[in-house]
């Protein structure tokens, strides 16, 4: 780890340890607010919302490796604020070379003033990029777009949606403000304590809201997806590591049949298996981030592999964490079940395990 990375990690660990204890987080998740503006402002001030942007955008020019470092800490603390959604995912699209967007948007994103999120998933489908129902067509003064989007992570606090739709048979990306005429936003909470929204729209937009189309849109989307996958994988890695650590602590303290649970060999082997699987994930996520930052040829394949491996492992590890705890882990007031809920929500965010696996096979067989 280089010095800059160490500084980032230290400051994240310090801030989260001091301000983001589980009970405050739980109160926030149970409140009518979706996120803490205090935290969000602090994130902006610490430069976390500017991390991956180039200096021309006031950013720090960090790569996925640094995003992953921070995401992993967010995973450990179950951070509710949408850094991944806005900074990493939306930010990746807004700053993709060739994508048409006013620089004021990037300023608003980097400063934390506005929140941006991807609106791609449609109801009753998996996230397949090639089968969108939402569609756009040219009209007199711009474009008319019609369709539905669902389960948009951070959707309840989003100011601008990056909406995918078909335009003349091609993928197109639109930037749509939450208060656009013809747009209905249904906001709600999610099981992992965050917010989301569904969109229904039949709206006319100015031509300037079309950010990209065709090959450009597609490659911006795919680059965004890689980053979303790795950000989510790193967050899941943090969550599962924390779930294991909590389990190890708990079994050391908990006495049953006259001995600490941790002394039962069957449980020791299960915790050893959890550790083994987590370490394998850590290796893949790290390698994929470095490959992405270096622009390596195998970056996407490593990214997809990380998605597949992390998704299964996070599911299994957090399930095991609950099982090894017993009843306590099934309550809202104990942390470990929240890791389970969070990694479950991450499973299908932007890209499902199944989609990743199919694309992995496609890339492998094409090589």
């Amino acid at each position: 780890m280089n010095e800059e990375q160490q500084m980032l990690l230290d400051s994240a660990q310090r801030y989260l340890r001091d301000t983001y204890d589980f009970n405050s987080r739980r109160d926030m998740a149970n409140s009518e607010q979706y996120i803490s503006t205090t935290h969000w402002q602090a994130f902006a001030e610490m430069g976390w919302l500017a991390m991956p942007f180039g200096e021309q955008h006031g950013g720090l020019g960090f790569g996925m490796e640094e995003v992953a470092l921070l995401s992993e800490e967010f995973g450990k603390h179950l951070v509710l604020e949408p850094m991944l959604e806005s900074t990493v995912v939306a930010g990746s699209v807004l700053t993709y070379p060739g994508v048409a967007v006013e620089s004021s948007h990037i300023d608003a994103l980097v400063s934390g003033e506005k929140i941006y999120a991807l609106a791609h998933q449609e109801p009753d489908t998996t996230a397949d990029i090639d089968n969108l129902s939402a569609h756009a067509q040219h009209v007199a003064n711009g474009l008319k777009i019609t369709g539905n989007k669902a389960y948009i992570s951070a959707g309840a606090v989003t100011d601008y949606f990056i909406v995918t739709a078909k335009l003349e048979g091609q993928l197109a990306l639109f930037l749509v403000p939450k208060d656009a005429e013809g747009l209905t936003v249904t906001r709600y909470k999610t099981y992992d304590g965050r917010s989301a929204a569904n969109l229904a729209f039949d709206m006319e937009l100015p031509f300037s809201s079309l950010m990209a189309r065709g090959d450009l849109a597609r490659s911006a989307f795919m680059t965004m997806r890689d980053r979303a996958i790795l950000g989510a994988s790193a967050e899941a890695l943090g969550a599962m590591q924390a779930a294991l650590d909590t389990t190890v602590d708990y079994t050391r303290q908990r006495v049953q049949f006259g001995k600490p649970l941790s002394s039962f060999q069957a449980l020791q082997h299960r915790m050893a298996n959890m550790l083994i699987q987590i370490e394998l994930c850590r290796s893949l996520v790290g390698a994929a981030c470095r490959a992405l930052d270096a622009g390596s040829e195998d970056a996407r394949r490593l990214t997809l592999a990380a998605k597949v491996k992390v998704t299964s492992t996070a599911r299994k590890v957090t399930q095991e964490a609950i099982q090894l705890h017993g009843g306590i882990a099934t309550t809202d007031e104990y942390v470990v079940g929240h890791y389970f809920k969070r990694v479950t929500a991450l499973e299908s965010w932007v890209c499902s395990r199944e989609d990743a696996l199919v694309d992995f096979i496609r890339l492998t067989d094409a090589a």
Partner: protein
Amino acid sequence: MTDYAAFRLEVRQFLEASLTPELRRAGKLTTSVFSDFESSMAWQRILHAKGWAAPDWPEEYGGPGWDIHQRYIFQEECKLANAPSIIAMGIQMLGPLLMKYGTEAQKTEIIPRILSGDDVWCQGYSEPGAGSDLASLKTTAERDGDHYRVNGTKIWTSLAQHSNKIFCLVRTNKDVKPQAGISFLLMDIDLPGITIDPIVSLDGQVEQCQVFFEDVEVPVTNLVGDENDGWSVAKSLLEFERGGHNFTIDIKKQLGKVRDQALRIRGRGGRPKLEDPVFRTQLAEAEIEAMALEQTELRIKGSFAAGGNPGALSSLVKAVGTELSQQFNELSVDAVGRAITPYFPEGLDPHFEGETPVPDYATTTMAEYINNRSATIYGGTAEVQRNIIAKQILKL
């Protein structure tokens, strides 16, 4: 020989006529072993009027006198018709236990009120710090004339907030081996000194409670079985709990649900997820496990019917049934994908009539997935079941 087809038809016609749309909705919206409380009780009263509230009970106590196959058919039809579940603590647990260990007074006073639903019972077994090691329980009942004075706390007491009665395991003798000093005690839940703290579960709902006892006075006539003999009473109850359930019925229901979900979700290429060969294969493998479980349950039923005792095989069925049921939860999660995420508890209320952000077929998926993680914890953890198999069958 009983005409089972005719019986099934009779049950089906009764359910058709008796299950209101609200009751069916309550059944459909069930996300754990318990349905909406009021709906469950309403359904129990309807069944009671028909004489079917306690399918497993002998006729002398108001059971319908069905054989093992009829009971299975009844359960299966109820499940298929989306009837709400009947709360188990009274009818499945305490009732049979009183028939075996209760005094005449207990039998005549308590059993009919269980059947009618006039009393709602909850179970006080586990304690914080005890878990699978039930024998280490610490709640004490000290004899004081014709009363016990009870102090301590019980946890994971399901539906205590809706119950007027509680049965508990309490320690009546500290000077003997842990298992030897335990007694089985019945209490009114509104006795002075009892307080109830609801526990919010991981799905955001309250189903379980912690119950505190502070100098609670309980008449000694409320003892079931002999003083200090509560362990054998309790063990028989654990066996009811473990063996009394037909996992196959629930799992077949889950299978149907996953198929339906996978038909409704469009996967890659816009085709139904069910047509994805990898998903279809996983589902088939799970279905084959369900068939193996079903045939094992039938073997056990056959052994019961022949007067045998399946013994530790019920541990096997508990272990397999709960884990397979969890596997179906995962297949559901895989099938519906992102539609699991909305947390919209209003939508789980059978009386709610508004719009929800989540489609019908996925309303309960996440809550079921979350809640069913407990299935391998309560009633003897998955690990305890394996200990039992290792000890009792393999003699390790």
